[in-house]
């Protein structure tokens, strides 16, 4: 299958790796720093930039973003007005957010199911069928809004002024795919004086460059080399190709999503904001629990703080109850990614993995068995088992149906030649997985080396980096995998 993607490189600015976005960002950068000393104008400018960014994708959904901001502002203000009913107000606010998210994300699934049911018994569904387009980033800004209301209730933050809340929720580097930032993290940065030391330009541009390379070159290559074809027509592939294809998707989703996050954090840094990290070498995890402390970290802490602990508080957190809660929460996380059995299966595998680990820890503790040292071969066995559990789950995440996922697995028993597994593909996979083992401070060292260069040399180096990205990347840039969530 040939699959040259030709999405317009000049097109929508919601895609960071486009010329249009580069021009947009240069204008926003200059405007934001010129207006930085002016408190209101600076915020209004950042807000306008966020809305222009969002409108470029679909102007109609700016109204949705504005509605979400208004709704959450009113709920936050109501907690001040009726402090005795804060719990009720926050609950209503959360429900309203969930209704908004639910309508756009699950209405289609609900109506389809209803139509099927009605059709099977010879009736017509009473609910009107509407093609509801999923607004880009709705899951992310809704999660941030819910966290905001809960943090108000918990006394972590006080309600933000409307302009601050709007600027926070509309901040374009994180608007479409996170990182899911808390108001308690972002709000104070709006009030902080401009950093007199200036902009951490080396770190920021390093992150943007690294993210571009991960997304445009590596993720696109892995998709075209094997992943897309394997999941579209699994019947064409042998066991070796299917196995390497599963590894390739495991690598692809990491470089795609972490590449986006790198760019988002780098762009925010250029505008003077620090966003939380989202990835920390997830594929060296030695357990499923460890994986989730390294993968989409801002979602993990959201799940932990706003789903798991509140649930544990109600049900208790003892052995089996905790395990059941883990499965339940991860099933919901699966559903958050999409209304379909594949995502439920993906969440279920992680939930069961977490529950089994939890139970085995508890049982060991109950029997007084010391936790085995995680070193040497045991460490590697743990890593390999965790990696393969995660990779197995990714198959469900990628496949369009359970049947399609099982078709991919079925190929693992079809031994034969593997012409699709090339040395370049293997080398790229080794590089992606090998990078996970680099020491944590390697980025700091790379940034320090880059920072010591003169500005003109830095600019020239970045220009060459753009050449490499364009030459080795596909023609045009496909959307990020996580945009659809």
């Amino acid at each position, binding site marked *: *299958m*040939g*699959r040259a993607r*030709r999405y317009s490189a000049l097109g929508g600015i919601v895609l960071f790796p486009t010329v249009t976005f580069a021009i947009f960002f240069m204008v926003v950068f200059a405007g934001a720093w010129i207006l930085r000393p002016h408190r209101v104008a600076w915020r209004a400018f950042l807000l306008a930039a966020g809305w222009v960014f969002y409108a470029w994708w679909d102007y109609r959904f700016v109204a949705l973003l504005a509605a979400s901001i208004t709704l959450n502002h009113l709920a936050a203000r109501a907690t001040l007005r009726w402090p005795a009913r804060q719990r009720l107000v926050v609950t209503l606010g959360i429900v309203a957010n969930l209704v908004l998210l639910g309508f756009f994300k699950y209405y289609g699934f609900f109506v389809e199911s209803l139509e099927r049911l009605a059709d099977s018994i010879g009736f017509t569904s009473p609910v009107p069928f509407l093609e509801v387009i999923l607004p880009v980033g709705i899951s992310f800004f809704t999660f941030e809004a819910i966290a905001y209301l809960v943090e108000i209730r918990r006394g972590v933050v006080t309600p933000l002024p409307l302009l601050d809340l709007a600027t926070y929720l509309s901040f374009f580097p994180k608007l479409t795919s996170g990182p899911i930032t808390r108001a308690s993290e972002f709000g104070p940065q709006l009030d902080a004086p401009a950093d007199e030391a200036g902009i951490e330009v080396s770190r920021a541009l390093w992150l943007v460059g690294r993210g571009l390379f991960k997304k445009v070159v590596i993720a696109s290559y892995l998709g075209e080399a094997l992943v897309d074809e394997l999941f579209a027509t699994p019947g064409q592939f042998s066991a070796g190709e299917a196995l390497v294809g599963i590894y390739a998707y495991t690598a692809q989703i990491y470089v795609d999503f972490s590449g986006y996050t790198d760019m988002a954090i780098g762009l925010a840094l250029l505008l003077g904001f620090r966003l939380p990290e989202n990835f920390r070498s997830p594929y060296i995890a030695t357990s499923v629990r460890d994986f989730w402390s390294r993968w989409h970290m801002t979602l993990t802490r959201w799940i932990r703080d706003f789903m798991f602990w509140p649930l544990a508080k109600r049900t208790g957190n003892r052995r089996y109850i905790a395990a059941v809660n883990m499965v339940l929460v991860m099933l919901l996380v699966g559903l958050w990614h999409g209304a379909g059995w594949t995502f439920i299966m993906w969440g279920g595998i992680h939930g069961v993995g977490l529950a089994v680990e939890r139970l085995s820890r508890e049982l060991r503790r109950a029997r007084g068995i010391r936790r085995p040292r995680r070193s040497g071969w045991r460490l590697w066995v743990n890593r390999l088992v965790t990696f393969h559990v995660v990779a197995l789950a990714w198959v469900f995440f990628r496949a369009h149906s359970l049947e399609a996922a099982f078709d991919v697995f079925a190929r693992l028993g079809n031994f034969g030649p593997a012409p699709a597994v090339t040395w370049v593909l293997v080398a790229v996979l080794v590089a992606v997985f090998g990078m996970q083992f680099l020491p944590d401070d390697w980025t700091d060292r790379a940034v320090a080396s880059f920072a010591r260069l003169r500005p003109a040399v830095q600019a*020239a180096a970045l220009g060459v980096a753009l*050449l490499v990205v364009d030459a080795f990347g596909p023609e045009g840039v496909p959307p990020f995998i996580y945009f659809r969530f």
Partner: protein
Amino acid sequence: MMTRWWRVRDENARFTRTPAVTLAIMAGALLGGALLNAEPLAETASAQPAGWVRSVAVGAADALAEVSDAVGLDEPHEALDDLLGRGEIAPGDGTPPVGGVVFVPTAERPARLWIAGDSLVETIGAAIVNAAAATGVMEARFEVQFSSGITRPEIYDWSRQLAAGLATQPADILIFMVGANDGQAIETATGFVGFGTDEWVAEYARRVGDLMDMLGTRVSTVYWIGLPIAADERLAVRFAVMNDIYRSAAEERDSTRYIDVFTAFAGPDGGYAALLPDATGRLERVRDPDGVHFTPAGAELVAELVLGVIGEVWEIER
């Protein structure tokens, strides 16, 4: 107390610069990158829909390309393209295959299918490959070129690419489907003309006819899949206009058959339907929420339809 993590890291002033210097670095990097990538940038600019944005983009990109060429900054990209074997269409062995005859395919001599087209083929191609493999007497491959079509050969020249592809990898049957991106102005000898005008229809029909003629000499049969009904009524009207052109052109040629999916995917009221019964009668979502593309379930229905039409002539038992 909460950890103020955005404050604790790197306070080292050596690694920071003023906004003005930062802007200069970014502008320098973008200018350098634009000069080093001037040629692909110019191609991308010219691929924009006709209008003032395209005019501005083309003007700027052409100016950059001239400067890049003058100072030799376009050479690194060309060298990398050569190294990666990009940019040139494979010439094949020099002798274009001549269209064969219809035969009864067997496991020993399977019918070779090539499915090609725009983004609509992404799911349809996969479904046809899977369905063809299940017959045991067909071998299929498919090629998707996003955002491609017939109105803008500067984005992707299907005529040249298909000729070259068939020269290197011959096929007995070509299944082709484009048009989703063709509802736009087309360039004629007198400039761009708007969609739907007489000039537009004449030029588009000429290009479709030329493509069918070329393909007819290289494969046994061309199966040209028309465009499906779209959720957006204006788009559906445009698709119907293009379908008329494909149908008429196919009827004039023995080597080409037109396959209608417009009416096949309409609902009971003749309008757009996102849900339709599958082969077992179960209601399935067959169209993406964008109202144009097919879901995998919908693509399977298209594959059934297409292989059914092919099977009638090629005597393929399914």
